[in-house]
C-alpha cells in the first residue's frame, strides 16, 4: 500500500491540503482505511480554522471521516453529538473552541464523524500532550484547508501533502506551485541550532532596515519571512557569507520569483525544525469540472519533485 506503512514509523503525521478540494479528506480516509489492524492505536483530529467555521455559518458541509472500531478521535462537542458511529468517551478537554469543548473518544462501532479539533498550533500541541495517556501510537492531524499551520514541524513529525486541479487548471502553474511548496518543506535544517549571540542577528518582517554587521553569521527571522524582508536580505552585500534561518517552513510566505532572486544572489535559507514529507497526493479533478489525465499528472509531478505522487482515487479503483 503506497506510503501508509511509512506513516507507522512516525508518532504524528499531518495531512495537509494546498487548497480546498485537493482531495485531502479522501487522502485521510485512504490512510485510515489502509492502516493495518495490528498497527498501534491511532488518534485522529482536525485543526479547526476560521475558514471552516465560516463554512459552519454558511452551512457548507465539512467532509466526513470514516473511522474503524478501536480508533481514537477528537472532535468538538457540536460534532461529537452529530456523530454517526458508536464511541466511548475517554476525555473531555477543559479547553473550549467555537464549537464547544474537545471530546476524545474510541470508536466502538464503525461510522462517520465530522472532525473539528484544536484551533491553533499551541492548543494542538496541548491536545497531543493530553492524549498521550491513552497509549496512542500515531496521531493523524487533518490539516487545515489552504493553511499549513497544522503541518508545523513543531507539532507533527511528518506530513502528506494533497494538491490537485483545484489549485490551478494550468498544468505548469500547478506544477510550479506544488514544486515550490515541496522545495520549502525540504529546506535543510540549520547546521548548528544555537550560535553565539554576537554571531546572530534577529530581524522581523516589520523591520525598517536590515544591517548585517561584520561578525554576523546567521540572520534569524522572528515570525514570518515575507517577500519584503527576503528582498531586503537579497540586496545585502554580505548575503553569500551568512545563513538565513526560520523556525519552520510554515513561516515562509514568499513568492517563487523572489525566492529565486534570493538564491541567485547567493542566499541560503535553513529551518530550525524540519518535517518529513512522506508523499504527495493529487486530485486531478477541479471543482469546476476540469480534469487532468491522472497518470500524466502523477508522472509529471513526480518527475518534477522527485517523490512518489499518488492519485488515491485511481489507487482505490485499481
Amino acid at each position, binding site marked *: 500500500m503506497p506510503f501508509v506503512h511509512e506513516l507507522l514509523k512516525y508518532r504524528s503525521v499531518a495531512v495537509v491540503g494546498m487548497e480546498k478540494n485537493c482531495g485531502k479528506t479522501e487522502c485521510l480516509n485512504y490512510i485510515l482505511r489502509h492502516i493495518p489492524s495490528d498497527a498501534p492505536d491511532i488518534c485522529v483530529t482536525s485543526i479547526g480554522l476560521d475558514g471552516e467555521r465560516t463554512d459552519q455559518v454558511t452551512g457548507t458541509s465539512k467532509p466526513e471521516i470514516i473511522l474503524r472500531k478501536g480508533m481514537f478521535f477528537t472532535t468538538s*462537542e457540536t460534532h461529537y453529538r452529530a456523530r*454517526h458511529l*458508536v464511541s*466511548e*468517551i*475517554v476525555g473531555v478537554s477543559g479547553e473550549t473552541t467555537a464549537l464547544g469543548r474537545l471530546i476524545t473518544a474510541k470508536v466502538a462501532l464503525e*461510522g462517520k464523524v465530522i472532525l473539528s479539533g484544536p484551533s491553533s498550533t499551541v492548543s494542538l500541541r496541548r491536545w497531543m500532550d493530553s492524549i498521550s495517556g491513552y497509549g496512542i501510537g500515531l496521531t493523524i492531524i487533518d490539516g487545515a484547508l489552504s493553511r499549513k499551520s497544522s503541518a508545523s514541524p513543531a507539532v507533527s513529525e511528518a506530513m502528506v501533502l494533497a494538491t490537485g486541479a483545484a489549485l490551478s487548471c494550468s498544468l505548469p502553474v500547478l506544477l510550479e506551485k506544488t514544486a515550490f511548496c515541496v522545495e520549502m518543506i525540504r529546506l535543510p535544517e540549520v547546521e548548528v541550532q544555537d550560535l553565539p549571540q554576537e554571531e546572530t542577528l534577529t530581524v522581523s518582517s516589520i523591520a525598517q532596515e536590515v544591517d548585517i554587521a561584520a561578525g554576523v553569521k546567521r540572520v534569524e527571522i522572528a515570525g514570518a519571512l515575507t517577500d519584503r524582508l527576503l528582498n531586503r536580505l537579497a540586496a545585502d552585500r554580505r548575503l553569500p557569507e551568512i545563513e538565513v534561518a526560520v523556525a519552520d517552513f510554515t513561516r515562509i510566505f514568499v513568492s517563487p520569483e523572489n525566492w529565486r532572486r534570493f538564491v541567485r544572489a547567493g542566499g541560503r535559507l535553513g529551518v530550525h525544525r524540519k518535517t518529513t514529507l512522506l508523499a504527495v497526493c493529487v486530485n486531478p479533478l477541479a471543482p469546476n469540472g476540469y480534469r487532468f489525465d491522472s497518470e500524466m499528472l502523477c508522472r509529471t509531478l513526480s518527475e518534477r519533485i522527485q517523490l512518489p505522487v499518488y492519485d488515491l482515487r485511481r489507487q482505490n479503483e485499481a
Partner: protein
Amino acid sequence: MIESLPLASGYALRYLLDTVALTDRDSIVASYAELSRYESVAGDRNMMSMLHSLLCNLKDISHSLDRIEASQAVDDIELFEVKALILLGRRIASVLSADSKSAALAPDTGSLQEALNVLDPDGNGISAFYIYDSYSPDLAALRLRIRRETDQDRRASLMDEEQVLEAEIRERICGSLRPAVPALRKLQEELAQKDINLAKASQRLSGGYCIPQVSTSGITSYNGMYNPYLKNVIEKEGGKYTPVDLSFGDGPVVIIGANMGGKTVVLKTAALCQWLMGFGMGIPAEKASIAPRDEVFFISGDAQDMGAGLSSFAAEMKAIDEVVRISAKVDNAGRIAAMIDEPARSTNPIEGTALVEALVDILGRRGVALLLTTHYNIPSGHCTRLRVMGMEDGKMNYRLCPAPDGDVPHEALRVAESLNISPEWTGEAKKLLKYE
C-alpha cells in the same frame, strides 16, 4: 495573592471567588484550623504533585446535575463527566488514604457506589463512558446486526434505531442517578475546597506567611508586616524590603511622613491582610493579631470619574462619605475598618486640614478602626500619630515611629533632590522657602 495561589482547577478558583469573606471569629478560627490540617500534605512534594495532577481534572458539572435532577435529557458527555467526578473523588481518596497523616482528609465516596455501578456496568473503573452493550441485550443484538450489515441504507436505518434505543437507556440511567445528585454536588464542592485548602497551605508554607491570632479586643497589630508583591519586586532587583510594625483599631491612627515613604503601601497591605484573614489565607507578616471586621473600606488614589461628571475631589469625598454614613447607621462601628489614603489631598491645605481633622474626629468617636495617611498637620488630640522615619543619610527608612504633636515632616524637597529633579526648580523652591 489569589493569582499566585497554586490552584489546580479553574472551578476551584471560581468557587473561591464566589465565597463570601468570613467575618465572625469562630468561622475564621475554624477556617485556619482546617488549613493547618492540610499543611503536612502541602509539605509533601510527591503527594502534592499527585493531588495537583488529579485535581486538574475537577470540573464544574452543576448544570448537568441540575438537568439530571430536573429529569431533563442528558447526553453521553454529561454522563461521562458524572462518572469522571466519582472516579476522581475515589482516586483522591485513595491518594490521601495511602498516608496516615492525610487519611482523615480523604473524601467519602461510599454513598456514590450505586451511582458508579450505574455508570460503570462492566466494572472497568476507568474514566470512559458510552451506552455499553451490557445495558440492554436488545442494544447488544442491534449493534451486532449493524456490524454485519453491508448495505449502507439498511445500516443507516439500523443506526437510527440504535440511537432511539440509546436515548431510552440514557433516560433510565438518569432516573437511577437522580437520588445521588445531592451527594454528587457535595463531592464536587468538597474537592474544590480541598484544592483551595491545599493551595492556601502550599502558598503559606512557600511564602513563609503567618497564621494570625484572631483578636477579640478590636485591635489589629502586625509585627514585620510586608507587601508580598512589592517585596518580591524589590528582592528581584537585588534590594531589601523593610517590613513595618503597626497597630490600629483602638482609636484612629494617622500616618504622616515623606513622599515615597511607603505610607500608601502600609495602608494597602493592612487592607490586604484584613481580606486575607476573611478567606483564611496566610498573612504576610512575622506575627499578626487581626480583629475581624464586617466591612473593610480602602479608599485611595485618583477616583476621578469623568463619565459620572465627578472630579477627583468629588469622587473621593463621596467614597469617604459612604464610610461616614454607614458608620452612623450600624450598632457597632468598631466592626468597620477604613483605610483612607491622603483624603482631601486635591483641595487647598486650609480646608483640606479641616476636612481631615473632622473626619478623624467623627470616625474616631464612633470607634471605626481608622488608618489614614496625610500630609496635613492633624493634632494628636483624637488620634495616634505615626510617622515614616524618612530620609536618613540619603536613603529612605520606611519604618514607622510615634510622631508627637508638631509640624508634619518637610522632606518633599529632599526627596525631589534624591530623584534627581532639575536643580533649577528645587533651588528656586528652596529660595522661596528661605531655606538658603
